[in-house]
């Protein structure tokens, strides 16, 4: 469905962020994208969303190359933007309407869909933000903003959801809710996280970006999570000393950074 072919991305200043990334997402597949900080997870999602053009390589959606020419075509641009949506890590960046209602209605209004009111109320209900519809998005908490953004994306009825650290702004209760919510979605999802204890909840397959900005692993997530050598190579676990009573030893730790 969505495919990266030998995708590399280099900043204008020359720093390499992604190196020869190659994978394909199948329809309705749930995939987790793992990697330590600074390995290029967010950049990869932006490249997949057609926002940043790969320096070399191509991104394909439904057999069509996503490049400037394709996105300049109004009909295809609209279809791609509607079917492949990206939830930014910082929900603030996505919010710009005067009220939560307008925020969620922004997509359907652009498309000229009928019954915008009904659609907004439906998705606000699904995401639990119905009581906030008259509020201004700027005044919401991080978790509320995240839900409003999700409602604004899901109302488009997309086929592929790219989610960048969706739990980063959430408290444990909201995190639990989001995990369940995403599990029930029919769409193809690609979720980035550096939170290993949650990774298994977001999908069965995982992609791992290494610190050399290459794809280090692509396969079943449980195999990866039980492979200490690979986890250490990806800088997702570390060992350090600690004490149990009088004895001191060291072993692998998985640390929550969120």
């Amino acid at each position, binding site marked *: 469905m969505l495919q990266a072919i030998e995708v590399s991305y280099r900043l204008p200043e020359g720093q390499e962020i992604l190196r020869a990334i190659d994978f394909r997402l199948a329809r309705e597949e749930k995939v987790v994208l793992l990697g330590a900080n600074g390995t290029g997870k967010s950049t990869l999602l932006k490249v997949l969303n057609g926002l940043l053009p790969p320096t070399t390589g191509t991104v394909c959606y439904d057999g069509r190359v996503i490049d400037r020419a394709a996105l300049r075509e*109004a009909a295809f641009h609209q279809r791609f933007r509607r079917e492949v949506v990206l939830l930014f890590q910082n929900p603030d960046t996505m919010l710009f309407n005067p009220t939560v209602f307008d925020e969620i209605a922004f997509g359907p209004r*652009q498309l000229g869909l009928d019954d915008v009111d009904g659609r907004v109320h439906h998705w606000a209900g699904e995401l639990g933000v119905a009581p906030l519809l008259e509020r201004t998005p700027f005044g919401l908490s991080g978790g509320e903003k995240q839900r409003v953004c999700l409602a604004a994306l899901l109302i488009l009825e997309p086929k592929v959801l790219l989610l960048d650290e969706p739990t980063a702004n959430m408290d444990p209760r909201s995190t639990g809710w989001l995990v369940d919510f995403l599990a029930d979605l029919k769409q193809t999802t690609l979720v980035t996280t550096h939170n290993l204890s949650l990774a298994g909840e977001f999908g069965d397959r995982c992609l791992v970006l290494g610190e050399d900005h290459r794809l280090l692993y692509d396969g079943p997530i449980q195999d990866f999570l039980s492979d200490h050598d690979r986890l250490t190579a990806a800088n997702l676990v570390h060992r350090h000393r600690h004490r149990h009573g009088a004895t001191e030893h060291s072993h692998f730790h998985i640390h929550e950074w969120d």
Partner: protein
Amino acid sequence: MKDRLLLLGYAIAVIAATSVHNPWWLAAGLLLVAVLAGRQAPTIGWRALRAVLFFSLVISIGYAAGALFGQAVSLDYLILVNIRVYLLIFLTFTLAAKIDILRALSFSRNLTYLVTLVLSQIIPFRRLFEDLRLAAESRRLRRLRLRERYLQSAAAAVHLFDRAEHDAREIALAMRSRGFFQPDATDNAPGD
């Protein structure tokens, strides 16, 4: 010291380049700066050309067009002003490539801190701004109306202000916890 001398030399050179009105002297100055720029001279020269080309062309063509309306137009002026403009931008780019701005400002501790903080703060602000731009693009399904584009621009500014408020508070706390604000630690510390 070297950087402060560079800054001083630059100031003198700028005043000289705007006080001399003989194109030959200015051309000689340009040659001298190019020698000082050394191996970077071609890159600096090219960047300098691109930086002033538009403005200089508009002014030069506008001035030359005066001839069509019977005004006195002189080739000398065009040569003089274009050499001068190019010399000054070349000089500035050469300085920017050679100088360590923080060392050049080291005569004032507060100014050094200020510029250090600004330079480190610009990076996250730029990153946030780039994300705001990409997020707006990601949510755009058709050509937006003027009203919608204004809302997006305004929201971008609001997020930048929010970020500024938050960061200013955090940095002040961090500086306080590191003892920056002890009265004897700053030059000309505010007494009140």
